[in-house]
């Protein structure tokens, strides 16, 4: 996790060499917790291959059909490798926690 809320002051580049390499620090991560419930581990293992699960928590509450379409889009359009059974459980998890009727956090 990154240093949430702590302002990093500009650090003098005293250690840098006057060569052609231009570097900054590692990219920090700020990933919120997913809601607890069946299917959470599947989401963590299959949906974080390409991006963090922050892509899920960032969304507004989306209708159940939209979550189904999102999971299908990840598989068909973006090439996510997810077995049918796991995909169904992931969709059910998203629908159980991230629709207008179900979203709490």
């Amino acid at each position: 996790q990154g240093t949430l809320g702590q302002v990093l002051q500009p650090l003098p580049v005293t250690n840098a060499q006057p060569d052609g390499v231009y570097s900054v620090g590692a990219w920090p991560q700020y990933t919120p917790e997913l809601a607890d419930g069946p299917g959470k581990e599947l989401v963590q293992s299959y949906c974080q291959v390409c991006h963090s699960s922050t892509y899920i928590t960032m969304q507004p509450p989306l209708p159940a059909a939209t979550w189904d379409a999102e999971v299908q889009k990840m598989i068909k359009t973006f090439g996510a490798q997810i077995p049918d059974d796991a995909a169904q459980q992931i969709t059910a998890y998203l629908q159980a926690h991230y629709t207008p009727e179900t979203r709490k956090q």
Partner: protein
Amino acid sequence: SQASEALPSFTGPQANPYWNGVNPFVVYPQKLPLLRLTDRGIQLETPRQYFRTAFTPNEAFFVRYHLDLIPNSIDLSSWRLNIEGNVEKPVSLSMQDLLERFKPVSIAAVNQCSGNSRSRFQPRVPGGQWGNGAMGNALWTGVRLMDLLSAAGVKSDTVQLQFQGLERGPGPEGKGSHAFMKSLDWNDPVLQESIVAYQMNGEPLPMLNGFPVRLIAPGKFSTYWMKHLTWIRALNKPDDNFWMATAYRIPDTPRGNTTPADIAAGKVKTIPIGKMPVRSFIVDPDGSSKLIAGLPVEIRGVAFSGYGRVTKVEVSLDGGKTWQIASLGAFYGPYSFRTWSFQWKPTQPGRYTLAVRATDEQGNVQPDEPVWNPGGYLWNRIERQDVVVGTAS
């Protein structure tokens, strides 16, 4: 003043009522605390207060990546800008070549994400839930795109130019999750005005804004402003990669407007997104503190259009029923933010809804109707700000 309790962690299913998205402040290299949309794919929104000036500070400039594999170190001894594809003579240019062999030019231009203000959409659509802060204005300095292309000699049957940077993802090759590429038509007039910029507000580009160089396509949405630009490819047939053929497309209708029903019926023809419609924003007052009856206040903000210079900004003190002319700040070029201000002395205590609308040189005026399309693009409805005026005694 600030919220004393944390805002909710999300908004919806109604529209986001806040100026910015309701995301947490986070810290990234070379950046002040910004609002985090996503952290792997990095997407950061600029807080409202940084739009008081015509030029947005580099440290506060918004960040929008699509994919997760982006550089945090670049070695200019091996990095090259490659111009290839349908050209007479492919060229590979070092930063030193860009600095020494080509004349530098500067242009002030607004960089705005296609999905800026997406969180206003009703019904809400998936995607980055930006408030109004996925935009910024900078003075960009670099080399004319056309000067670079003449060094390579683009062949006459070229139909598009494709731009690719160092942004990559772990998805399979051939999919949009593997590489990010965008193309512009070879006959698009924007190419004449485009530059490959190595400077932003007089400094090297921050890594997260595209170090060492990015494309500047004045008037167009940021999707074309390729960061870490490394390949420019002349194409003799249209680009059919995901980011052109499927993503960043708008309905071919007035204002890019459509309905969920027409989309579901499959009736909507789409075209690639292009220029930014005219917009204006109220930066101050932000409604978080009361104003005092009898004490003058400056209502101020920024305006811009991708269709040419902003010629008029009007302010309303009654929620859009009547309008008065605001004064415009300095002119930095047709694609820059233009600051505006309006002196107001509220005499009566009460609740007021301020509103602002801009007009550009082509006569486009901001509408009061929302727009809807499934991508969440092209929002430019009139902005409002509620304020409370208290008594002075």
